[in-house]
Structure formats: C-alpha cells, structure tokens
C-alpha cells in the first residue's frame, strides 16, 4: 500500500489525476464518469473455507462473500468475488493499516496469499440516469437492477477491455475497475460513445 503522504509526492493516476478526490473525466447530460484515483486494492487468494473466510472478513472489516459474483460491503470498503479462490478487497480511503496487520500477524493457512494490486487497476465511477445505457454500448452483461443488484459484481468486457463491474452503492452508480494501461483507451471510447449518445 502506498502511504497517503506520497500521493502528492509524484503519484499520477492512469488518467493523469494527482488527487484522492474523485475527478470527472467525461460527462454528458445524464451521465458522469469519474476516476477515484489511488484506491487501495488487495488481491486475496485462499481455498473457500467458511471459517477462514469469516476470520479474514473480521480482520479486514468487510464480509468476504462465498457466493460467486457477489460483493461484501462495509461503508466504502468492498470485497468483490472474482473467482472461487480469489477476491478483491478495495477501499477508496485506506486499507493499508489493516493489511499491514494481516500480513504481520499471519497465522493463515499456508495457501492464503495477499497481493497488493492497488495500482494495477483504477476505479471509474459511472453515475447518472444514463449510466446503465452507456455501459450497454459496449458491455454484453444484463445490468438491469432486477438482475444485477446492489450486491452483484462481475468480470466482463466493456468496449473489448476486461473490466470488473459492480454497483457502487444502492443507487444507479456503477463502479468499473479497469487495468491502468487500458484506462485511457476506455475513457476515449466512453467519450466517443457519449458524443453520439444525445444526438
């Protein structure tokens, strides 16, 4: 994890932002796309033993969902199911201290592993009444709230780029995690899509 004091020490997000505060990168009448720069992210791998999941959840202060494609939530801290033995824990504020403790204290089964992937992907937020329609321009997933609810997440494609999609909160705002090297392309694609959107 990177300590906050480095954020103004040369940290630049994949979209060129230098602040922790969400920055609007493109917007239209009914939709806004923001980047939440420097969101701490931890890749957690383990065999899905309920006991271990529970203990880990306690330690990370967020429920680790056993059910596929679901999100555990505690305030702004999220735990996304990625695979039967993989979760992504993210927190726009700070995950560092908990993780430091995690790794220090140890005591986990030998195949439990943690990888800091905070800078591997950046977090976009798509919000507004047209957010879902905009995603539908390039994402094959059914994002109807009755199908893809607040506790759902999914790995899929958006504009032919791998993304992790989830509902940022109860509202119509979506979180889109995209790998750093693809972020500029994805925003260019969203910008182009928006140009035609309100024609």
């Amino acid at each position, binding site marked *: 994890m990177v300590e906050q004091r480095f954020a103004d020490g040369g940290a630049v997000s994949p979209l060129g932002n230098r602040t922790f505060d969400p920055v609007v990168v493109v917007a239209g009448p009914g939709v806004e796309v923001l980047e939440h720069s420097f969101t701490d992210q931890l890749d957690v791998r383990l065999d899905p033993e309920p006991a271990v999941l529970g203990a880990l959840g306690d330690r990370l202060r967020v429920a680790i969902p056993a059910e596929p494609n679901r999100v555990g939530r505690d305030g702004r801290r999220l735990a996304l199911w990625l695979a039967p033995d993989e979760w992504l824990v993210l927190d726009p504020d700070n995950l560092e201290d908990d993780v430091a403790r995690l790794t220090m204290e140890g005591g986990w089964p030998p195949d439990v592993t943690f990888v800091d992937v905070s800078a*591997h992907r950046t977090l976009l937020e798509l919000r507004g009444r047209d957010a879902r329609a905009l995603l539908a321009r390039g994402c094959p997933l059914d994002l109807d709230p009755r199908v893809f609810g607040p506790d759902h997440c999914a790995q899929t494609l958006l504009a032919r780029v791998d993304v992790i999609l989830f509902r940022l909160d109860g509202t119509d705002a979506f979180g889109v995690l995209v790998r750093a090297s*693809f972020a500029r392309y994805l925003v260019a694609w969203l910008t*182009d*899509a928006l140009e035609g959107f309100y*024609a």
Partner: protein
Amino acid sequence: MSGWRLAHGGLIDRSRPVFFTFDGRRLAGFSGDTVASALLANGVDVVARSIKLGRPRGIVAAGTEEPNALIAVEPGLALRRATEVELVDGLAVRSVSGRAPAPAIDETPSEHVWHHADVVVVGAGAAGLTAAQDAVAAGGRVVLLEGGHAAGPLPDGLVDAADFVFLPRTVAVGRFDSNMIVAHERRRGTPGANTAARDRLWHIRARDVVLATGAVERPLVFADNDRPGIMLAGSVGVYLQRYGVAAGRRAVVFTANDSAYVVARDLQAAGVDVVAIVDTRVRPGPTADAGGIEVLSGHVVAGTTGDEGLASVLIVPRDGDADRASPTVVEADLLAVSGGWDPALRLLAHTGARLRYQPSAGTYGVTEVPPRVRITGLAADVNGGVGAFSTLDPVWLVPAPDGSLDRHFVDLQRDATAADIRRAVDAGMRSPEHVKRFTTIGTGNDQGRTSGTNELGVLAALLGTTLEQLGPTTFRTPLVPIPMRVLGGPYRGELFDPVRTTPIHGSHVAAGALFENVGQWKRAWAYPREGESFDDAVLRECRAVREGVGIMDVSTLGKIDVQGPDAGAFVDRVYTNRFSTLKVGSSRYGLMLRADGMVFDDGTATRLADDHFHLTTTTGGAAAVLDWLEEWLQTEWPDLRVRLTSVTDEWAGVAIAGPKSRELLARLAPNLDVSAEAFPFMTVRNEYLSELPARIFRISFSGELSYEVYVKSWYGRALWDAIAAAGADLDVTPYGTEAMHVLRAEKGYVIVGQETDGTVTAADLGLDWMLSKRKWFIGLGALDRPHLTRPDRRQLVGLLPDDPDLHVPEGSALLPSGGLGTAGNVTSSYRSAALGRTFALGLLAGGRARIGSRVDAQVAGWRVPLDIVEPVLWDPQNERRDG
C-alpha cells in the same frame, strides 16, 4: 403516365408537401411518402433500365422485396430501394440499373447496443402489436421491432408501458444461437434526424421471440411479365391505402388466390376501372368476393404488350391449347398479380432451420417451430395455408402462345428468365443450388424475395418433378442488406482496438519518441532529435548505453506474482531450467516451451521468498503466458497449491543501462550499497528511492552493467523524471525498443517472436544448456522426436557481410549452395555503433557446424555472401555485464 394521387385517403400528411428530384426531375410528394409512392403519384412508370437487357422497369412492390426501383441517394450515393426511402425536402436520388455507383465515405460511426429481453416481437403489424400487448400484460421486458417507418400509432396499453421498448425503422437482420436477435436501427437520414444521429446495431438476448413478420407476395411467370405497370396486387393495395396512390387508371387483376380480390374491389372503389379479375383457379376460394367485377376463372395472362409501359394484357384459358391462338386482348395500364404468398420466416433459417415446401399451403414453410419461438399473424396463416392468402394450386409457369421462355422473367433484378433455367437443366443441372449459381437468380440485393420460390416452381415444372423433391431451402444473414459501417460500429480509427500505454507514455511523447505497436501496447521505438534520422537516433541511443548510461521504459513486460507452498515446484515445471534451488533475493533467466517442445516465451524469475516468485514475460506474451500457466494449474495440476496473479500494470519499470548506471543508481538510492560485491548480477533489492518503495533488479538485456527499477505504476512518471534529473550531467539518454533490439542482438540474446516462430527449439537457439537434465518440464517429452534431433535443423548463428556498411534486410533468405529453396533466414539485422559495422543473426540449416564458413543471403535478387560466426559479438566473456 398511369399512376395518380387520390383526392383523399392514405396516411400521408397532405398539409406538408415535400419536394425532391429523381434523375434531376423536380417532383412533389407529401410528408409520409416514400420515393416509390411519390414516383407513382407523379405517374412515373419507368424507374430503371434492367441490368443486362436494358428493358424498361417500373415499381413492382412496396417493401424490401422491390426488385426494380433501386436508387442512389445524393450526395453519398448510398444504394437504397425507392420503397424504403422516406421523402424529405431536398432529397435528390438517381435511378440505378442493378449495380451501384461507388458510394462516398460516411465517417459517422454506428452504435452497438447490448440488450436483454424476455420477449422480442418482430413486426409491428396488427398481430405484432397484439403479441406485444400480451407479453407486456404477462409482465417482463418486451421489445417490439418494426422494420418499416410508417408503423401505426401504438395502442394505449403500450405507449406508456414500463419495460417496453418500441424500435421503429429497425430490422432484425439475424437470429442467432439461443435467440440472439441482431437488429439494425436506421437513424441516419430519417426525417427530422439530427445529423449526428448514429445508426444502431442492437444485440438482443431474448428468452422468447415472436415472429409477426408477415408474408411476401409472389409474382406470376408469364411472357413479358416485366413491363412497367405490372405490380404485386398486395403492393397495389398498400399504395392505395397507405399513400392514397392509385397505380393505374385501367387495371386487370391476375391472381391464383383470394387475396387479390380485396385489392380489385378497393381499386374499383377508388375510381380505377378494373376490367377483369383473371383467376387461375376454376373455382375461386370462399373469400373471393369480386364485388361485381368480371371474373375470368380458370384463365391466365399469357402475355402483355406495350412500349415503355404496359398497354394490354393477353388472356387465355388456363387449359385448352386451341384458344391460345386467339387470346382475349384487354387494354390496361396496370396489371396487379398475385401468384401466391411466402411466409417471411427467413429469420428461422439463420440458425439452421430448413424451410420445406408445404403442398397444403403452396409455399415454403416450417412444420415445427424452434423452441422459444412463436409465429403469429399473416406469417402463421400463410405458413399454415389458411385464409385468403393460401394458394393451394399455384401456377409456376404460364406457357407463351409461341412456346418461348426467354421473356418469362423470374428474377427481374438479375434479368434472369425461365429460358435461363431451361439452359441450366439442359446442361445437366438438377440441384436448385446449381441452377441458382448458373442463372444468378436470387443473388440480387432483393435477396430473391420475389424470385426464389418461383425459380423452384419453374425448375420443378421443367424437370417434371415436384417442389418437395427439390428439397428444402435455407437463407443466410443478413435479412436485408446492411451497411458495413453499421456492423463495424464505434470500433474505428484509434478506437479500432484497445491501446495500452505505460505510466511513462507522456514523457516519451514529450521527448518526441516514435512509437511501435507491440501487441496492444504503444512502445517508444526511438527518440529522434530535431533533424536526426531514425537510424542515427538508434546509433546514438546504442552508443549512450555502451559508453555512458541509457534509460528505457520496461513497464510493458508481463509480470506474474506466484505464491504458495508449491510455488518452487510449479516454477520448476514451467521453465526448462531449475528454479527450486534459486536463493531468495536472486533472479534467473528462464525459458518456457510449448508442450510440443518449441520455444514459447522467456523472461526472468526472481525468488522473493521461499514460497513467492516474481516472473517476467515478454511484452507480447504476457496474457498468453498467464493463461497458459493457469491452464496447467487448473486442468492438470489442481493438487499444486499455487496462486498466480497478474501484476503487470501494478509496477512501472525503468531500465538503467550502461557503464555509468551504477553511479546513477547510487545517486537515486544513496542508502543502497551498489558495489559489485554487495549487489551482484541477477539479484534483487528492496529499497526506498527518497520516500518511494522500489524493487531494484540487477539484470541486463543489453549486455552492459544494468539495473531495472520498479515502483508502483502511480509513480512511474515520477521515477522516470527523477532518474533523468539525477543523471542529467551523465547525459542519461532515453533509448527505445529498436536500440534495445540492437544491443541484445550484439550479445546474441534472442527475442521470442523474432528469432523464433513456433518452429524453433531451445537447442536451435544454442540454449540447450538451459534444458535441465535433472527435472521434468513442459515440452520435455516432445524434444526427442526424430525431426527435433536432426543435425541439419536451422540453428542460430551470427552473420557478417563483407561490406561493413551493407545492411542485409531482416527476413532475407539464406540460400543453399545450389538449386531452389532456402537454407534459413536472417532474423535480426542492424547497424552496430559498438562493432562499427553491420551484423545479423539468422537461423541456418546445420548452422553451428558451419561457423567459420560462408553462406549466401538473397538480397533483392542478388546473392550476398556472409561470414558465419558465433552469435555473440559483444563482450563474450560478460565482463561488462557482470563487473
């Protein structure tokens, strides 16, 4: 001049006249007209000359089945049908004779949309609207597609229904596996459309599909059946009802079913003089109400006369040759024909369903419908052969009095006649597919809507067989022609394919770098200075690394985090050389083979802890390598407790290479002991650069003293700039991939994908020393196959032209001493600043044994002799690298 506009009626807005030009003629119509209806209303009967014979042709139909009235729309000259282009003020169109002029470029992209529905209803006619209402009432998400533009007003139940999407001007172009409906929504150029409007290509996943797609009327095949004024009866009715246009003043109706009787009555009511209804049937059907019009039952139209347009029709009894000599001649400018109807069920065929001839319905249809698909309305009636549209006793070919067939047109757009079908039969063809290809019937842009069934009917008649015996027919996507730009969608220009850039990309741009595509990455290729050539820039960059210090962005290298109790064992299996013995804090160069023993990828593995490795891969191979390792783990070795995580984008990396790199690193990491003893080659250190946590590898792909510094990618740009600043007085020089390629080639280091092409083994590259003898690895079992151990395999060698300035192009063939063929090829070739000459690497048959001798390369047709040398030309003792 035969067609005319009725005083009232139709769905057009008579308060809004619209002016347009057709082949330069200025004409008027009304809002709500199509070009076709307006042309008819203006009495234009000749709309095109036929493609082969140049015969005059008029409007035949009112929809997508129209074969004749092709137009090019100014200014883009996009090809359309007059029946599908809505009239807008200032519209300018020109007639087309079957083949379109080259259209202009339209750079407006289209939108692709993914959608999900419980029910998709195709067709918004009465039956479609009912189906949509039912579906909405039943709850769930409903989409209603209407290909046409003039769909009636939506019923109340639908207008404000939630979860209901109505898409007018939207054609379902295809139905694919599991009810995937792909539909084209026309928005460009539609009345009132914003010029920025983009056409949409919908991809709709539907649980259920309802086909309310109607039916297409068939013409009848008789002599001179192509004259302007001869139209499909149902279409004549459409022009009457929807556009308030009568297609003629004096009409004859020629039908084989009851459906045309309504049209006859409506024409009569509209003031058209309907002389007679010629019915092929001796006993017309129950719904055949002529309303007082004379009916000649059991008769056929055997021919027509006329100059540009229809003048008269020749009527004879269907049976009884005697009367053929003296047909009844009736003057008429309109002949409304109905040979029967085909249900519009092509969407079913797109996923493999075959349409078979149904004698009970007199058409091609289906007896069983695919799961989760329903057919309703006219399509269902015609398919089932019920009601006024069923044609139980179709007449496929009306003989001409003189027995000729060469003016019996089957495909008007292709100018193909029954005589062409006869020629195919005479040539020995029996299959409808052969006949289609021989005659080109059905290959026009009307996709054979009005000709396909008649072709088979005529063929059966000529072969004296039945349509059942001719077998089923099938149809291909798209349902109607669709512009390529709509299929291409938004993926054009820079958006054609995802672009990957590193965190340091901006610095390269600022430094004036040229970029090359490596996979999806943009990599800095070289940094030419003002007025400096590419080659000179590369030489300068190489010299800087050999003599001073250079820096390169290596962030694109694939990086895989490998953890778990069995990490060591796993890494041993996937690399050819041994890693389980590697000390923590050390790195090793590793080679991966495919299962067939061919070189797959290379990189380094660094042991960060007993159960923790950090792997690097080639830039292009990163994704494939991770997939490959995951595949073995999941499908072959589930017992291994290992986790793989891609951290490619997590880390940004900068290589610092050259004799002065140690000094530069020392400035960056004052607390780090960078001495050769404390920080030897192929080891790693974790260190803070100012306050920035960094992972520093002492590693080299240039053959010089060299380091690779990695930080969280957020800090990549800061790292690059910090290094540049710290090394300013050392003249630190950014170098690109081209210089890197030269430097590694001087050292004889291979690049996977350049020295290898999937047919090269480790031994071929002189890397057999990397094949562990003491452990198993992927590909091992394939290595002793006979052909892989032959001494004459193509092996890596160095190659030097006599002329130190001659650059042998990469890819040049290495030639055998005599005869045709190749003995190998040049894989890499560069000008070397360090060697002061050009040099090359190549793969040469039995090359290693030939070191010291010569071989000819073929350069632009000449044989250029080369010295065969060891592939390592720079610092073979590795003193510079390891010192």
